[in-house]
């Protein structure tokens, strides 16, 4: 199974609740647009912090959106690649993972010591119910392939599980590196060495 979904999300959670307020993310994302801090053709910032466990504050871009996200009751950086995904699933995952990682590190730089991500785990969302229905049989069929791809991304053994049992929700996985610690900068440096061609 190597079909690339229409949209692919990668979310890294924070290690702990930060002191910085969601409202303070708005000017950060606005400045990222001015300074072109992260990847993509950056368009606008939208504020949904009034919605409980919602997408929080989103930096909208043409290719993919960056959200300071509160879904699943956990604060994190959620990157959703919407367009120009590579035609091979391993490349698509690598690209989304790398961009999400880069943005999360940029956000850490905005509030050193306060915003701190746990890069040893991530949620991967396949936003395409036509090709990726959230059912156990699909997971069983894909588990080995996806584990191999994600192990290669992390460069170590990983554990994989479905994020949601509810068949109505999107097909999403939680991946955890079986390593004592994962350094985001080193991981990004290693992943950046691998070429990925987008469509």
């Amino acid at each position, binding site marked *: 199974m190597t079909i690339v979904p*229409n949209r692919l999300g990668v979310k890294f959670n924070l290690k702990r609740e930060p002191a910085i307020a969601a*409202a303070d993310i708005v000017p950060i994302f606005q400045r990222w*647009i001015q300074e072109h801090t992260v990847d993509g053709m950056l368009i*606008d910032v939208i504020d949904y912090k009034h919605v*409980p466990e919602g*997408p929080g504050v989103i930096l*909208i871009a043409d290719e993919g959106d960056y959200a300071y996200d509160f879904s699943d009751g956990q604060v994190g950086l959620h990157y959703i690649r919407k367009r120009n995904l590579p035609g091979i699933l391993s490349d698509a995952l690598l690209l989304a993972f790398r961009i999400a990682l880069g943005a999360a590190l940029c956000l850490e730089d905005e509030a050193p010591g306060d915003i701190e991500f746990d890069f040893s785990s991530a949620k991967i969302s396949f936003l395409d119910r*036509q090709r990726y229905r959230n059912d156990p049989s699909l997971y069983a069929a894909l588990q080995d392939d996806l584990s191999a791809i994600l192990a290669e991304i992390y460069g170590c053994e990983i554990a994989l599980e479905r994020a949601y049992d509810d068949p*109505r929700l*999107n097909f999403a996985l939680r991946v955890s590196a079986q390593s004592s610690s994962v350094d985001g900068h080193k991981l990004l440096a290693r992943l950046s060495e691998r070429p990925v061609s987008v469509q």
Partner: protein
Amino acid sequence: MNTWKEQLADQIPAEMGVLIDTFEAQIELRKQGKLDEKVFAEQRLRKGAYGQRYDNGQRHDGVRTRELSYPSGELVKGPDTLWDAPGMQRIKIPYGGLTAEQLEVLSELADEYADGILHITTRQDIQLHYVHIDDTPDLMRRLAAVGITTQEACGNSVRNITACTLAGVCHDEVFDVSPYADAMMRFLLDHDDVQDFGRKFKVAFSGCAGHACGLVKMHDLGLLAQTREIDGETKRGFTVFVGGGLGTVPQQAKVLADFATEEQLLPLAQAVSRVFARLGEKKNRNRARIKFLVSKLGIDEFRREVQEELKTVPHDDRHTAYLDTLGDFAYKPAKAGMALNGTPLPDGFSDWYRTNVYHQTQSGYSTITLNTPLGDFTAMQGFQLAEIARRYVGDNIRLSVEQNVVLRWVADADLPAIYRELCEIGLGDAGAGTIVDITACPGTDTCKLGIASSRGLTAELRTRLIERINLLPDAVRELKIKVSGCFNSCGQHHVADIGFFGNSRRSGNHKMPHFQVVLGGQWQENAGSYGLAVGAVPAKHIPEVLEALTNRYVAERGNDENFQTWVKNLGRKEIKAMLQPYMKLPSFDDKPGFFSDWGDSRVYTIDDIGVGECAGEVVSLFSLEIARAESAHFEALLALDEGNYPLVDQQAYKAMVLAARALVRTKYLDVGDDYGNIVNEFRSRFYETELVYDRFAKGKFARYLFKRHDQPPTQVGEDYAHQLIDETQLFIENIHSAEQRINGVIVS
């Protein structure tokens, strides 16, 4: 099954499938430059696919205006509207009624095609934002498979038909208007007589005169339930209002008919539509709503026109057929009604119960309103809510014009349990319908016309008011606040106790976001009167203005004096004096924060305001109809590529008939859909008169249609298919030329 089209083929009603396929073909034609951008824009709008802010490829980032280099380059989906720019998809939810399954599909779409948020509008629609135009056909198919359409959600046609959320469960209603709203929606949807309007047309139903829910007096066409004794029998019917509206020139609707029976309802709506299409302004979009026509003619002359038009409305079985199925419009509660007796009450329940629960006319049942912040909820909340609905209320979900989700038919005994579950998913806030439950349009967040941040201000006011809601006197708690980002009034600021609409002022070399304060509008009596604009205040002063107003109201109001009366008695001059201290403009150096809008850290600018699409494009009826013919021709070409020759024949023939129909309808609106009638009318009106004759080829191209119509092929091979495709193309070109000769240059 590789596509949604294949997967859902059996679930999509045929007519809806054709409309979506046609739109998908038009997308391809537009990409190939074969469909005019204005014609495509109007087609797109009529599918609910709207433009969004910055879709002209420019955005001020707080320092400078920056070009947004979308990958599709110069390709546009309408004037100054770049193809790849994210757009908004409006989804019609007639009278706000939803099933649990529909809510789940809407949530899937928000998750996969938008930003994960479902937004409830002031017309009971759902809007998804940041949607790519290429995703819209599949999005529409998935909706169609569960009985939802986006057809005519925008553009110059009949918009979502609204009705009271309490219809059918209300103590005050004359009768349940829901089935009538449903019938009118079905009847007018894609109807020939609503295709040639100069502007949009909004319809609302209300079950009673006194309460607000239906707001019929601010609508183009408002229907207020009434009964009359006729020949000893109680007959249902409606008082019919026409020509109301908000916007820059708000007008109260006039009574067109004191009482129209239920049998007269649909023909009357059709006649009004035909008069509006025939006599309404088409060129000046600022004066094209029906309220201007009613004002220009006067209600008596308008009524006479409608009465004359009624005589020409062709017989249609659908005018009364729906009356036979009114009884089918029954509500199925998930549980038996049962009183709330002795169940332990969770914390916070009493406050919620006081503001969010309405006891239905049916014993043992309540309707609950979910205080939905800024009308937004997440896809995840949508799934959770659908699950809660299934267990407690079945398919009895509605959306309100105050941008809330409403669950009806909750057994009273279940209220504590459902409250607990709503709290768990973040939708258990008290205060529905109170001062904290503020209505707001999208404003500068996503709207091209937005001048100030209506949602930013609303979020700020909401946060501050929630903090001290328990300290507010009842008289203040009951006030309604509504906010629009500009004067167009999508936030319905005219009918709030306290309304705001965005504008701007200059201080030194900088612009400053402002809100005009509008006081004393009346929500009750179906939007009974509109508020007074009393002055523009810097956006950052609005929270103080609100506090000053409410404090003085509480201090000075007489016994039981309501806000409207207090405002009226105080007078515009005194109110202006009260606002004066807040109206002073600080300099940029003194208060730089005043030069940014609420929720937006950028230095404020009005450079991002674009051209709105609310008015749709002024495109002739012929242009719209011939575009359908060209889409069918395109479908024929696709079928040719696939080697499906019978389908080529079917689509090419359809394309020729639709092209002929486009020309016939310039002279004879009521030609209908029957292929035989269309060909006969075309033959007698345009062929036998030689009006369609080409200068050199004479009637040759028209005969291509007659040949296919009179002698359908018994076998369809490749050669025949190629020839038919070519002949269809020539016929369509011939129709274009003829129309220009006969009717002058196409308005586009």
